[in-house]
């Protein structure tokens, strides 16, 4: 008899938890739709400025709508820059589609965001000092494997190119005094330098950064989100809250 009651209680608790989760998602959806997420996140003192999203190949192929939803949520939460990465570069091919859908979704929800999508290379030419009238509220970089290790190799070649014309002694001195700053500068020159994401959300079946530009994730908080699915607002909220609630110890 006791076992029966225990089973009943367990099932009841499970049902309550499921209803609470459904209610939470419903409320989050209202929050996104009404823009109140922005106001909620304004009061959060520690919010990542740059968020990396890593999705596996299957999610990139089949989860475009979910990715749109994800970007809209992050825009509403006040995230300024998103580095959206899939190893094979599938999302780069759908960049225009994603941009249109994201803009359309945010306008429908009256969030009035500006977006700028770019394919891994700096959207503003370095030599152009003139800024556009309205600076994008959220920049979305579409990245793939070619923006990772290959970009570092390109920056390394660029460093050597910059040495040409100098005397042999000067070349040796500059090589011997090479620093992280020099490699950063080289990445900037080829349009591959971007700020490091403070937070990375990994979606899919693998908890791995999957070749995301290694130079940029020195201190990035990595949260594995599981498979990409619809109505993930609750999961995203929890991830952002988990990030803001952490005490970050950086070895010093």
């Amino acid at each position: 008899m006791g076992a029966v009651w225990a089973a009943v209680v367990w099932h009841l608790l499970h049902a309550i938890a499921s209803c609470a989760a459904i209610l939470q998602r419903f409320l989050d959806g209202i929050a996104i739709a009404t823009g109140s997420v922005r106001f909620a996140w304004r009061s959060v003192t520690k919010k990542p400025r740059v968020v990396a999203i890593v999705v596996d190949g299957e999610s990139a192929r089949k989860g475009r709508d979910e990715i749109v939803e994800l970007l809209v949520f992050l825009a509403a939460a006040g995230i300024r820059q998103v580095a959206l990465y899939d190893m094979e570069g599938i999302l780069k091919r759908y960049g225009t589609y994603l941009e249109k859908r994201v803009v359309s979704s945010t306008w429908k929800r009256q969030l009035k965001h500006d977006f700028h999508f770019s394919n891994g290379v700096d959207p503003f030419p370095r030599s152009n000092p003139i800024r556009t009238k309205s600076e994008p509220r959220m920049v979305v970089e579409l990245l793939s494997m070619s923006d990772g290790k290959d970009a570092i190799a390109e920056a390394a070649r660029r460093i050597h190119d910059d040495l040409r014309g100098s005397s042999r002694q000067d070349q040796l001195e500059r090589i011997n005094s090479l620093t992280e700053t020099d490699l950063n500068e080289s990445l900037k020159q080829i349009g591959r330098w971007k700020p490091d994401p403070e937070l990375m959300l990994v979606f899919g079946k693998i908890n791995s950064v999957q070749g995301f530009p290694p130079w940029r994730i020195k201190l990035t908080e990595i949260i594995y989100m599981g498979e990409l699915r619809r109505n993930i607002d609750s999961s995203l909220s929890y991830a952002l809250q988990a990030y803001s609630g952490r005490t970050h110890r950086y070895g010093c």
Partner: protein
Amino acid sequence: MAITASIAAPCASRLGAATMRLPAEVDPLRLPNHVAMIMDGNSRWAQVRGIAKERQLRAAAEACYSNAREIVRLSSDWGIKALTLFAFSTENFLRPREEVDQWMQQLDRVLSLDDPATILLLPRPLQAKISDAQSITSGNTGMKLVMAIGYGGHSDLVQTCQALAREVEQGKMAVEEIDQINLAKRLMLGERCEDVGAPELLVRTSGEQRLSNFMLWHLAYSELVFEKKLWPDFGEEEYKNALVEFQGRMRTFGVKHHS
């Protein structure tokens, strides 16, 4: 720096002896060749145990390297081909001088040359002992152990770019040959672990979920397991669970490991 040495192989055939000791839940055919670990949480471990503040640093360092020896033993017993432990980062050197000195003293004290399976980890004045330890273990054919001391992923990449730039300047290679492959070969762990490849699995203890500038290049495609236990409490059970989790992902999803 990254210090590499090889463990003495077990007397019995390597696979047979390893599978006898492997926990039943772990599939011997799907073991990762190379495991990397970030040994985090030692100071917190000493704090939560109520150890007097003036003894916490020493206790933390002792516990850290004591557990490292146990994990090295388990890894070798279970048939892991290479184990890389992140002991001390470039950023850690920015900690108060007293704390850095304590860690270096404990490294010297806890790891001795008498044990061929371990390496003396040395601050600058004692660098000669590194080559002694590597000489002693050079004939071993068992698991490869790499201790990353004063290591930073960014500085590793910078020194790699330097090495390649020098080779180009000396006419030993063309600029066009500076690519992913040559970069990977010049990284600190590049040639040392060429036979086992990059780590397939990274375990970080203490609940922190970051790479903290550790092997940024090598861990690009590694499975990440973030363990909540503090490093001194990460034992056989936790290690087994990490391997089971790794194998569960690989088995279920059939993912091929990139390098």
